[in-house]
C-alpha cells in the first residue's frame, strides 16, 4: 500500500527530508542545518548552500527512510520544493527528486514552499478551521493571506522590501547580538523597555509591509546615541514590528471574518508575537493556530503534507525551479 509522501525541502540553507502521511502524521524527519557553513559570511552564501545540499541530500533521505522503515514501494509520491528560494539550492532538490522518481517509479510533485508553510500548522494534528487568515513571518517571507479551504489562497499583502526575519537579523547585527538574530533580539527585548518610539511603517495602510525604513531608523538612532541600552533598543524594535504585524492581522480578521488565525514561519517562535496574537484572537472570538516551534522553520514535513493537497487536486507543476514563485501559483 502506497500511503506515504517523501517531502524534500532545499529552498534555502537547510536540507530537510520527511515521511508524511495524509493525516499529517510525521513518521520521520531529518534536517541538516548549514548554519556553520554560512556563519562566517553573516548570511546565506548561495554557492556554498547548493554544495552542502548536494552532500547532505541522499544520506538524509536514506536516514529518514530507514528510521520510518519505509521502502520506495510504500511511497505514494515524492514532493519537492520548486520555489520560491535560491535557484542553486532548489535545483539540487529538484534534480535529486526527479532521479529518485525515475529510478523508483514514484510520481514527483514540484511544491510551492509557501504552501508548505501554510500547511505546517496541521502537522501531527488538524488545527486549522476554515476560512482562515494566515500570516507567514520568517527570515525569507512576510505575507498575509486568506484561505477559504486548504487549497484556495488569496494573497492579501506581502513585503515591499525586507522580511521581518531579515530585519531582525540585521538589527541584531547592529546591536552586536549575533546570529540567529530572532531569538537574541526577543531575549534582549524581554529584559528591556520599549522607551523609544520607532516608526510603524505602513501600519495604517492595507496589507503590504515595509521593514527597511524601520531598520534604518534603528541604525540612525544607534549612530546618534551609541550609549543606547541594547535591551531597550531591542524592546523598542520588537514593539514596532509587532505593532505592525498585529495591526495587519487584525485588519484581515475584521475584513475576512475567519474562524481561525494562523501564524507560521520562524518569527512565529517569538513569545511576544505569540502573546500579541493570542490577545487579538481572544478579542475577536476566533481560534489561534500556532504550529509547534519545530514546524515553524523550513522543513521537509510541511512540503510532504502540502504534497497531499496537490495529489488530491491532481495538479502536477513542472520541476523547473521558480525562485520568485508567488503564493497564488501552485
Amino acid at each position, binding site marked *: 500500500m502506497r500511503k506515504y509522501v517523501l517531502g524534500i525541502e532545499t529552498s534555502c540553507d537547510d536540507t530537510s527530508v520527511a515521511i508524511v502521511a495524509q493525516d499529517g502524521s510525521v513518521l520521520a524527519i531529518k534536517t541538516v542545518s548549514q548554519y556553520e557553513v554560512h556563519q562566517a559570511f553573516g548570511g546565506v*552564501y548561495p*554557492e*556554498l548552500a*547548493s*554544495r552542502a545540499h*548536494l*552532500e547532505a*541530500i*541522499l544520506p538524509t*533521505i*536514506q536516514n529518514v527512510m530507514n528510521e520510518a522503515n519505509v521502502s*520506495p514501494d510504500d511511497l505514494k509520491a515524492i514532493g519537492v520544493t520548486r520555489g520560491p528560494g535560491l*535557484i*542553486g539550492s532548489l*535545483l*539540487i532538490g*529538484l*534534480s*535529486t*527528486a*526527479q*532521479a*529518485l*522518481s*525515475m*529510478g*523508483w517509479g514514484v510520481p514527483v510533485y514540484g511544491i510551492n514552499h509557501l504552501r508548505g508553510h501554510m500547511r505546517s500548522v496541521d502537522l501531527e494534528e488538524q488545527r486549522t478551521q476554515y476560512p482562515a487568515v494566515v500570516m507567514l513571518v520568517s527570515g525569507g517571507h512576510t505575507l498575509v493571506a486568506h484561505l477559504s479551504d486548504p487549497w484556495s489562497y488569496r494573497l492579501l499583502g506581502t513585503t515591499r522590501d525586507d522580511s521581518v526575519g531579515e530585519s531582525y537579523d540585521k538589527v541584531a547585527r547592529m546591536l552586536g547580538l549575533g546570529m540567529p538574530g530572532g531569538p537574541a533580539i526577543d531575549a534582549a527585548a524581554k529584559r528591556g523597555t520599549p522607551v523609544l518610539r520607532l516608526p510603524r511603517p505602513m501600519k495604517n495602510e492595507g496589507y503590504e509591509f515595509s521593514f527597511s525604513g524601520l531598520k534604518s531608523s534603528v541604525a540612525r538612532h544607534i549612530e546618534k546615541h551609541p550609549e543606547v541600552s541594547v535591551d531597550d533598543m531591542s524592546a523598542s524594535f520588537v514593539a514596532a514590528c509587532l505593532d505592525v504585524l498585529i495591526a495587519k492581522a487584525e485588519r484581515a480578521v475584521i475584513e475576512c471574518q475567519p474562524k481561525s488565525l494562523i501564524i507560521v514561519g520562524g518569527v512565529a517562535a517569538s513569545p511576544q508575537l505569540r502573546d500579541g496574537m493570542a490577545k487579538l484572537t481572544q478579542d475577536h472570538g476566533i481560534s489561534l493556530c500556532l504550529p509547534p516551534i519545530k514546524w515553524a522553520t523550513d522543513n521537509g514535513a510541511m512540503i510532504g503534507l502540502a504534497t497531499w493537497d496537490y495529489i488530491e487536486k491532481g495538479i502536477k507543476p513542472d520541476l523547473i525551479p521558480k525562485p520568485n514563485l508567488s503564493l497564488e501559483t501552485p
Partner: protein
Amino acid sequence: MTKLTFLLQTSNGVPVMGLAKNDTVIFDSASDATLLGSRDYRSVLQTGLRSIGAELNELTEIFVDIGPGGLGITRTGVAFANGLGFALDIPTIGLPAFDLLGTQLADQTDDPVVIIRKAANPFVHFGIFKAGKLAHYEHCEREIAVKHIQRLDKYAIAGNVDIEGIDAPEVNAATIKTMLKVAKRHAIPDTNARAYPIVEALS
C-alpha cells in the same frame, strides 16, 4: 555479465548523454539535434533507453562529469546521477572534465594538451594533460595560466577562454565515445559510491 553504462556530461553548459553496452556506445544524444543540450535528463535518458530497447533497471553504472566548468549545471547533473544511482542501487562515478577534454585532444596529437576554462573573474581553471593523464591543474588568475602556456613549445588547446596571442581552443566538450574511454580506466566501486563536483575556490 553485460554492462549497460549511463554517461552524462554537463560542465560545458551543453548536456550530452550516452548509453554504452560493454565497450560500445549505443546511444549518443549529441547525434540528435532535438536532444543535444536538453536539461531534461529524465526524458533524454528515457528516449535513449527506448531507442536501444532497454529498461532502466538494466543500467549497471553511471559516469558523470564533475567539472570544473559551469557550477550550477555540473551540480544538477551530479545530483541527478547520484539520485539515479541511489534509486537503482548502482554506483555513480565522477569523471573530471579535464580528463575528458585532455583525452579528447590527446587522441589527435602527441603534444601536451592545455585546458583552460572560465571561472569567476579574474580566475580560470587551467590544466595540462600529457602522457595520458592530467599532469597539472590549478584554479588561478588568467595571467598565471598565460605564463604557463608561454613556456610550452608546442601544445593543443581545449576549453572556452580566448587569449590574445594564443591559439583559440579547439574543443570544449568530449564525445561520449571519449567519455566511455575515460570511464573504462576506472575500477567500478561499490554500489553506494556517489560523485561530487570538483570544489572550486570561491572568490
